[in-house]
């Protein structure tokens, strides 16, 4: 009994978030008039859960007989997902009213997906990992199609659902084969006999299928076909949440299983990861050049960023784990900000997300234009912004582990990316649009954008602030 209480306390951020999502849906069922209560309860609850995650940070270990990780890694990832959810909710309040999907379920589903993300990336047993993955994905399928009379939204939800469920099938088959060869689903136990298992063809097949499942979820080439369609068709703030929270959670689970536990550096699987990384960087960046829609451009850029992070997974070792986590945190602030500004520019019919719609933004909303430039420069990876240090740590880890050629490809492709990111900046400052109307700016959106911009700048100028936490991961 005492053990149960301790374990419940140690996994409090997960339990707290699912409780919060239930409270929100209850409030929504009881009162129909406005969404203010749901909005504020979600925000306060998210803040409380972030505090809980910080409090349990020193208790590094596992809970519920080795099923989930607590403290350290789990706390950092929980804070990452909760911050992403908080920023998304702040930016969504005005947005969901504008596009006519102001349902209380929106907040409920965001919180439920956040719970799934935390479970997904903290699970040390493949059962828990799978449940977390599905909780996250199923909530996001609904969110992608939440604007149900919108044709693009329907299409995005259908594609996301069919390909997501398809990927889950591979993921599960991988787990089944791993279970058959090891007679356990606990990754820590499997890791103890990794050397012996690596010579079993069925075990390798299982790990390979698991890898395919993960590659689908992080959107790495050649499993990326769904990413642009889903990001373009879904409501913009949902895309923001998917590209930061869902991607980060797939990556952190990927890191925990493949790099931190199985330690696959130097095996055949590593070669596959290197190929995925190169393909994602090249195809993501090159195809992004020809995009005219900001959401689609950001989708291809997110494929490219998945490629950079895969370099970290290929290199392996503690330095890469830190680097990829740092990258995910900086990418979270940057991308939520960029999508948030796109959501403000967007019109009622969910149109107006072309890059041309940003023409002359500086003359209409100077602050928005300046913040958008900060986000774009951070995505390019210019110092002293957060994106620079993310890339820097990953590239250093890759060079130290003998993957200099991957780093060279990474640097060349980020050169290519300068063109399409700067195009947005040029359009905002050096072109004008007489007909464009000023978009309405809610104070909550401005606050969230300021937070994201501050995050990008602060993490960039004082990276040690985040890195100090990362030295105590496991």
């Amino acid at each position: 009994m005492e053990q149960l209480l301790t374990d419940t306390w140690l996994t409090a951020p997960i339990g707290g978030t699912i409780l919060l999502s239930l409270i929100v849906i209850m409030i929504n069922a009881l009162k129909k008039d406005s969404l203010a209560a749901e909005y504020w309860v979600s925000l306060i609850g998210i803040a409380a859960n972030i505090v809980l995650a910080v409090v349990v940070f020193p208790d590094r270990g596992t809970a519920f007989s080795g099923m989930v990780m607590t403290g350290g890694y789990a706390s950092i990832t929980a804070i990452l997902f909760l911050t992403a959810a908080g920023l998304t909710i702040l930016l969504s309040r005005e947005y969901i009213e504008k596009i006519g999907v102001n349902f209380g379920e929106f907040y409920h589903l965001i919180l439920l997906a956040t719970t799934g993300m935390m479970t997904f990336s903290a699970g040390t047993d493949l059962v828990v990992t799978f449940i977390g993955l599905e909780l996250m994905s199923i909530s996001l399928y609904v969110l992608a199609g939440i604007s149900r009379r919108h044709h693009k939204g329907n299409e995005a939800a259908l594609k996301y659902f069919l390909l997501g469920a398809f990927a889950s099938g591979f993921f599960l088959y991988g787990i089944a084969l791993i279970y058959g060869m090891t007679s356990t689903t606990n990754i820590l136990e499997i890791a103890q006999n990794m050397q012996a298992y690596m010579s079993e063809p069925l075990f390798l097949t299982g790990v390979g299928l698991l890898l395919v499942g993960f590659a689908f979820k992080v959107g790495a080439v050649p499993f990326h076909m769904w990413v642009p369609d889903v990001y373009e068709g879904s409501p913009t703030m949902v895309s923001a949440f998917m590209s930061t929270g869902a991607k980060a959670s797939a990556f952190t689970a990927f890191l925990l299983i493949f790099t931190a536990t199985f330690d696959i550096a130097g095996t055949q699987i590593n070669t596959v990861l290197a190929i995925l990384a190169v393909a994602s960087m090249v195809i993501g960046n090159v195809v992004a050049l020809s995009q005219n829609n900001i959401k689609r451009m950001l989708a291809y850029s997110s494929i490219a960023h998945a490629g950079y992070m895969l370099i970290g997974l290929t290199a392996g070792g503690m330095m890469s784990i830190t680097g990829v986590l740092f990258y995910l945190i900086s990418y979270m602030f940057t991308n939520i900000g960029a999508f948030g500004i796109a959501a403000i520019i967007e019109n009622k019919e969910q149109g107006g997300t072309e890059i041309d719609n940003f023409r002359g933004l500086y003359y209409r909303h100077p602050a928005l234009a300046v913040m958008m430039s900060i986000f774009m420069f951070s995505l390019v990876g210019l110092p002293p912004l957060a994106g620079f240090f993310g890339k820097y740590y990953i590239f250093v880890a890759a060079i130290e582990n003998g993957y200099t050629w991957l780093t060279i490809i990474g640097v060349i492709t980020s050169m290519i990316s300068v063109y399409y990111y700067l195009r947005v900046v040029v359009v905002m400052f050096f072109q004008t649009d007489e007909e464009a109307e000023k978009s309405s700016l809610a104070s909550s959106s401005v606050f969230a954008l300021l937070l994201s911009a501050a995050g990008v700048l602060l993490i960039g100028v004082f990276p040690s602030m985040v890195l100090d936490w990362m030295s105590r991961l496991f």
Partner: protein
Amino acid sequence: MIPIHYYLILSAVMFITGVVGVLTRRNAIIIFMCIELMLNSVNLTFVAFSSYLGNATGQMFVFFVMAVAAAEAAVGLAIVIALFRNKQTVNINDVNILKW
């Protein structure tokens, strides 16, 4: 007793049938059925391994998979219905507004 590899071959064939179905069929409902076939072939693998290894984890996993598949079916069919109301079709060749 039937040897374990009979079950494994059967479930692999079921899984591949599902994958081929997803890749070749054009009706959203049939694609969805093929995905369910993939999940059920995984269930068969789990149960076969579980009985072979004398270990209950696999059978417990099957319950989770079934619960998740049910939740997925609810959401998936809702999405297909929302699409049908807008476009009067469930053929994925007609669902092509988004492309590069």
